[in-house]
Structure formats: C-alpha cells, structure tokens
C-alpha cells in the first residue's frame, strides 16, 4: 500500500542505482518530443500562474524525490507559465495538517490524497467532483479508464488514481524451495491457492531458533479496513450494507474470517503489530524474518531497493481464493481538485498531466507506479525481474476498489482497537465484532 510505504521510508537505498535509474527515466521522458509522450495537449494558460499543490512529502525516499523533480522538469518545459508551489506534508497526520491549514485560510488548487480520506474532505467541502470537467473535456475518453481506478462517492467521481496497485502475495522463494514446499504461485495455477493453503504455508514456514522467531506470514494487511472489506467480499460478505446505513462486520462470514486470522497470532505464525512487519528493518520481509506478506508492488520495489534480491528470490502470487471469490484490493492514490482553488483551469491541466499522461506513468515507474496505468490504452510496465507479468495480467480482471464509509476516519478508529482485541484473543471474536458493528452503525446513523 502506498500509505504503508511512505510511513516507513526506505533509508538504506543504494545511491548508485538511484542515479542510474533516475537518469534513464529522465532521458526517456525529457529527451523525447513532448507531443509524442503526452496524450493531454491542452494549451497553456495565457498568464503566469502559481499553482498551489498540497503534496505528499517524499523526503527520505530518493526515488520519489527524483521522480517529482523529473516531473517538474517535464511539466515546466511544457507549461513554462505555470509555477508549481508545493506544500509538503508527511503521510502521518496528512489530513490533520491539510484541513487545519485550510481552516487557517490557506488555499490550494490540487490536493494529494488517498481514498480513505475522501469522505472527510467531501464532508468539509474542500474538494469537488470531476464529473463536469470530465464531461466537458474532449481530450478525455472515460471509457478508456479502468472503473476500479476511479474514486467514486455517491455516484460522483472525485479522483482518478495516478498510482494504482493491487495487493499480491509475496514470499521468500529461496526459503520455500529449500523446505521443499510448493510455491503459492504454482498452487494458484493448480487452483489450490486458497485460505487453507495460506495457513499451511505460514505454518510450514514459521520456525524458531534459540528464541529468535521467524514468522510464516505477516498479517499487517488485516489491520486495514479496506483490505478486510475485500477479503470479506471473498468470503461472501461485506463490512457495510450497500447504503452504508448498517455495519455488517459481525456477519457469520466475517466472524469466521477473523477467527481464521486469529489462528495465525495464537500459533505465533504472524508477528504482533509491535513486533515488526514486512517493512520493518529488524523483523521484516527483506531481512528474512518474515517469509511472506501481502502488499502492493510498490513495497517490493522498496525491498529490491534495499538490496533484498542479493539475499533471496522474491516470489509473487495472487491473493488466496476465498470461499466465494478471489478479488484483489486495489489501492489508489489520487489527486483531488480543490473546491476553493484560485486556478481551476490550470489545476485541471495539471491534474491530467500528473494523473494519467504517459509521461507521468514513465516518470513515476521507479516508485512503483505505472504497472497498472489508469487508462487501458496506456501499456502496463514492469521494471524488475521478479515481476510476474502473468500474475499482473490475471489480477487485472480481479482488482476491485474500496469505497470508504461516510465516517471512515472514525470507523477506522473503532476498527483498530477491535482488530487488536482480535489479535490478543481475550474476548470471543463474535463479541468484539458485535460491539464494533453496533458502534459503527450508530456512527453513520447519528450524523
């Protein structure tokens, strides 16, 4: 997930590869004639404009910093009259900082965002839907866009993902083969990669040596509402009814799903949230203390950039098939247009260039974007040897986006402690989920 990556920026990035990759990207994009690279060809606004961008602060992630610079080079060459003024904020506290900044009178034209925040932005009237702009813009063919890449709330499109990544299963291939086990990738080909196989994999891969635990699988993913929503779907249920008037997190299927995950923690197959996680430098995937995890391709590029392939081969597989389906959570980072910006036309021009031009897809490839371009007509890209294009193709038809509830921030605040209780296992799962469902329903009905 993009959010997880940015919270824990990769620090041990080798400098030389960065320069090499980045230089290649710049050469590829900047040296080419702009007309050939870009699909959006709106004429530049007539006067000098300062476009105010509330942006994610990528400090510490050299690849991201460089990609931003490259995009500015590209954009500056094409629109010399537009100056981009960025205000950067770290992922932690991103919404708090943004909304208090707006409350303090600051104005932005374009806002970086993630779907989970959107309900709060809409509720506070700081973003506007894109529908009118999309309908009026002859350069945009909406049929060319993947449905799953659109951020839609109450039937209105607010975001078109510039960074799309479904979740996959990643595993330590070398260790799996050393144990003589079938790879999840192979099991999937044989239609045997289901939840039981997942549990068996974790159990077989977990081990302990002199008090040092190697975990079979990381379940950080279960702590996120969006991921659980898709896994719930795969078990034939959901977290909410269709109109978000009743929380159904306590359905029989969801109770079974949580009990399934609880086994991992009870049997010490998965690390506790305070013990590490796939990105953790002490107990993580790259240092081989965790044998498998579920996350987006963007994380694995971090692992690669941490030189993990020198230690082991990375295996890649689709998500396990649930009792009902094998849907894949699609994580999206979008930009949103401000409802209070001073430069709406320039903002839309920027939006198109930054979100779904071919140039952007190429420039941001080193940070994991571009593998799943928003537009069907833009070719998917790969960068590393471990990328399994067959799996990418399979998942393309299985990816679903998550629609957040109207009170997502508060729902998440209720979900997290419930999830921690599930891990602790002191109360029955059914009891925890009944309480969560009751409080979440109250949340949306009392607004």
């Amino acid at each position, binding site marked *: 997930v993009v959010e997880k990556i940015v919270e824990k920026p990769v620090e041990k990035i080798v400098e030389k590869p960065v320069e090499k990759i980045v230089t290649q990207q710049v050469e590829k994009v900047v040296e080419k004639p702009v007309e050939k690279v870009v699909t959006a060809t709106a004429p530049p606004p007539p006067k000098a404009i300062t476009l105010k961008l509330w942006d994610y602060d990528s400090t510490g992630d050299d690849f991201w910093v460089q990609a931003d610079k490259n995009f500015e080079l590209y954009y500056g060459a094409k629109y010399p009259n537009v100056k981009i003024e960025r205000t950067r904020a770290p992922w932690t506290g991103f919404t708090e900082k943004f909304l208090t900044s707006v409350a303090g009178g600051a104005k932005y034209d374009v806002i970086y965002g993630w779907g989970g925040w959107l309900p709060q932005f809409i*509720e506070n009237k700081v973003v506007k839907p894109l529908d009118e702009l999309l309908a009026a813009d002859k350069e945009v063919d909406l049929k060319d866009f993947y449905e799953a890449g659109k951020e839609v709330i109450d039937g209105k499109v607010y975001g078109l993902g510039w960074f799309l990544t479904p979740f996959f299963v990643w595993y330590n291939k070398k260790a799996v083969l050393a144990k003589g086990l079938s790879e999840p990738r192979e099991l999937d080909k044989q239609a045997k990669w289901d939840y039981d196989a997942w549990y068996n994999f974790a159990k077989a891969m977990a081990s302990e040596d002199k008090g040092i635990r190697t975990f079979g699988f990381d379940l950080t993913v279960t702590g996120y509402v969006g991921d659980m929503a898709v896994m719930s779907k795969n078990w034939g249920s959901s977290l909410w009814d269709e109109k978000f008037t009743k929380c159904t997190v306590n359905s029989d299927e969801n109770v079974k799903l949580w009990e399934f995950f609880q086994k991992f923690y009870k049997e010490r197959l998965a690390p506790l949230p*305070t*013990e590490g996680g796939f990105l953790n430098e002490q107990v993580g995937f790259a240092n081989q203390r965790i044998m498998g995890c579920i996350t987006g391709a963007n994380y694995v590029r971090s692992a690669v950039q941490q030189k993990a392939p020198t230690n082991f081969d990375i295996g890649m597989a689709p998500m396990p098939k649930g009792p009902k389906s094998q849907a894949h959570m699609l994580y999206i980072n979008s930009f949103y247009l401000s409802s209070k910006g001073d430069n709406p036309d320039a903002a839309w021009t920027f939006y198109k260039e930054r979100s779904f031009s071919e140039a952007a897809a190429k420039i941001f490839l080193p940070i994991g974007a571009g593998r799943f371009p928003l537009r069907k007509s833009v070719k998917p890209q790969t960068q590393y040897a471990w990328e399994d294009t067959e799996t990418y193709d399979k998942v393309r038809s299985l990816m679903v986006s998550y629609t957040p509830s109207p009170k997502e921030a508060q729902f998440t605040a209720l979900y997290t402690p419930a999830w921690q*209780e599930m*891990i*602790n296992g002191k109360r029955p799962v059914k009891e925890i989920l009944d309480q969560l469902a009751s409080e979440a329903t109250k949340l949306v009905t009392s607004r």
Partner: protein
Amino acid sequence: MLIPTTEVTDMRHGKKPRVGPLARREAWEGRFFVAPWLIGFVVFTVAPMIASLYFAFSQYSVLTPPQWIGLSNFGNMFTDDRLFRVSLYNTAYYVVIAVPINLVVAFLMAMLLQVPVHGINVYRTLFYLPVITPAVANALTWTLLFSGDFGIVNAVLRAAGLPTVNWLFEPSITKLVFVIIGLWGTGGSAIIFLAGLQNVPHVLYEASSIDGAGVWQRFWRITFPMMTPVIFFNLVLGIIGTFQIFTGAYIVTAGGPANATLFYVLYLYNNAFKFFKMGYASALAWVLFVIILAFTILQFRLARRWVYYEAEK
C-alpha cells in the same frame, strides 16, 4: 511588576494615596513590561478558552461555521460515548498509579542528589537531562526499548533466560509501561525537592542529633514536615500534568492496544484533529478542566491537614 511603595504605605494608614511622578512613571513602566505577557495571555489563552466554551455547545468542524446544539455534546458524552468513559478510566488509572510513584522516586532522587559526593553537579545535570530532552525523541526511544521482538528490555530478559513480555501489546501491561516512561521525567520534580531539602535549616538536624534522634526520626520529624509544602506543590502539579498525558501515548501506542492507552487528551485530540469534531472536543476539554479544577480545590482543602507552613506558626 513594579509596585510603587508609597502607595502601599499610604493605604496601610488609611489615607488617600499620594502618587508622585516617579511612582506613576514606575507604574506605567510596569504595565509596559507586563503588556507582552498580558496580551499573549488574553489572545492565546483567554480568548481561545472563551471561544472553546461556545464551541462546546456547538457542532463545529473548524471548516464550516459552528451550529449551536445546546447541551447535546455533554449529553452524548455522559450517556452514549463508551470511549469517553474508557479514556477517563485509563487516565484516572494512570494518575492514581503514576503520581505517587513519581513523587516517591523524585523525593528519593533528590535525597541522593543532596549527598555531597565528588561530581554531584554532574549527577544533578544527568538526572535533569531527560526533562529537557524532546518528548518525541523520548517516546521513540521507549518504543525501541519496549518493542516486543527486538526491544532491548526483552533482549535482556531473553539473555537472562526469562520469559519475554509483549510490553506494548498487552493491555494490562501497556498502561504500566507508561508509568515507567513517566519516571523518566522525574528529574524535574527532583530538582524542586532538592531545592526544598537545601532550605531545611541545619540547626534542626543538629539539635535533634544532640537530643539523640536517629536517621529515621530525623527524616519523619524534621525532613518530611519541613518538606510538605514542596511535596504539596509537586503533588498539585503532578496531578495536573498526568491528567494531560498525551505525547507518549500518541507516538508509542496511538491509544492501543485495544484502547488501553487511549488517555483523555489523546481522545480529545482525535476528536478535534482526526475527526474534526471540534465542538465535541471543546466539550471534552471543559470537562477535563472541571475535573482538574475539582481535584486541585480538593487538594488545597486537604492540604490544611497535612502541609506544614513554618511561617504560619
């Protein structure tokens, strides 16, 4: 502030005060010098307090104008908000355990720091250092120390052949971890105790020694009674401070596990800046203000029974 002495003198004799040009000038200078603080206090403390009182009776997200809803925020808080009760319980639990432990440890620390050994000033500085270390850096350090797998505390336990503990993921233990973390800042109270200890007249100790009092008697009959005003001061400040525990919980556990460290101010912060329920957060703030005020008044009442002020006798 400079106070014209002539004014005081004259008022004492019941005469109309005669204020000379020098006194008037001094008074204006006093007002001038106190003005920056006074303006800051009014603008940044009094005005926000008044505004928050209004918001407490409103539905207000900061980004849209407040709407008056009367007592609804308080009604919801006391009848319908489980997390309000949870956060209040967590905070009370922390106050009840942390404050006495902090006082005892700080007092003992101060007594040790009073012993005239070589390099005592270095020790005093070292014990005070955590107080001026940035709170975020402190919190991150404690996170690393108490981490379940790779934390230093568990590494020591493991090396000693003892079972490890999920310090930050076991609800019954995590609150106690915060009590331990709280001890890190006792240097502040210790310095105040130290100042108090150094003000206890030596003549009392000498006289009692001549009368045959032992160490224990000297402590209970002299040191402790003479120190009660300082203990009272640290107690009042300690309770006020611990009721407002925030930074550690925000960074180390974010209120977890399972709301075990969802302390009152953290819950208030979540409502204000995560959910943008500023009206509700204001109501929470005023309830906390009333609670702390009540505790402080109670302490002042009880202080008459156990605090000894030499000047009053």
